[in-house]
């Protein structure tokens, strides 16, 4: 599956079905700091992602302290 990551914006290829939670764990990303979008739709942590899916892992943390 194609996985879009941000900051910096880049796409990686991940092979094999897995859950959203496992994908984030493998990428070393905190679930509290990200949303996962499959083919344009938000999906929860136990959702199973397939090779044909297009995935966006969207960080939700804003950095301004002002």
């Amino acid at each position, binding site marked *: 599956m194609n996985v879009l990551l*941000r900051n910096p914006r880049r796409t990686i290829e991940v092979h094999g079905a897995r859950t959203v939670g496992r994908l984030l764990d493998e990428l070393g990303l905190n679930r509290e*700091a990200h949303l996962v979008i499959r083919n344009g739709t938000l999906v929860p942590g136990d*959702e199973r992602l397939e090779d044909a899916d297009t995935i966006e892992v969207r960080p*939700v943390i*804003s950095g*301004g302290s002002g």
Partner: protein
Amino acid sequence: MSKCRVCRAPAVIDLPRHNANFCGDHLLQLCRRQVEKAIKDFRMLEPGERVLVAVSGGKDSLAVWDMLLELGYQADGLYLGLGIGEYSDESGDYARAFAADRGVALREIDLRDAHGYDVPTAAKATRRVPCSACGLSKRHLFDSAAREGGYDVVATGHNLDDEAAVLLGNTLRWDVDYLARQLPVLPAGGGFARKVKPLVRLTERETAAWCLIRGIDYQVEECPMAAGNRHLGYKAALNGLEQGSPGTKASFYLNFIENMAPLLAAHRSAVVDGLNSCERCGAPTTGEICAFCRLVETASAHDPVPVELVSGKRGRR
């Protein structure tokens, strides 16, 4: 496949702090209720008041504007052009697109046009981190725009993660002055409007989900000036705790407001009573000239600095 706790439809999000999953409609319902509760419990807004929303083009400010409009408040937006290269250009476009789509008023102030500087130049001129000059400029200009525009309230998109991270920083330094003033509502005073934070009961993940489900396009990319700042480190630390113990951020911040903030009331009054009015602009200040007027004086005298020369560099805080 997980189901919505409310209606058993397929869930779109898991919220461990609520020990539940939600479909899109019921995630929106949860967010609405949390915002209504914050507004009611902290007495943020009264019906009929004119609200000025501080809009950055990011998820939180667009979400709070969207929610206040949906709840029936008369809420205009104010966008500040900070001069942070393409990032600012794109952020302004998101704010304008939202306003045009909703048919609501968006006021705009460009820092360089109005005050002769931008955030990268201010950072270089003052040798402080960009977020310091940026936050100072925003606070002052939203205050003064609200006063000049006759608004009763300034609403910002500060969320639970923002407030918990600031609280952690203030606590690690035992900065009692800042702790005493870290409230979800700052009362009006000295001719300035009340300031409210209606999103303090929602996490960033929840406000981002609100925007996705509501179809609100927002600036997803991180501000190039904020990368690696201390505030982000505090957020990462808190999210590390949250992942192992869901609800930690909410209990840390909301219990501070309920249990600790009242104990600091006397100190808060002393701090506020000790403030003077800036000789140049009338804003509250501990000295004779406020920090914003001093920033304008220093930064506007400096040659313009491109964003690439400042981003990613860390200076004094």
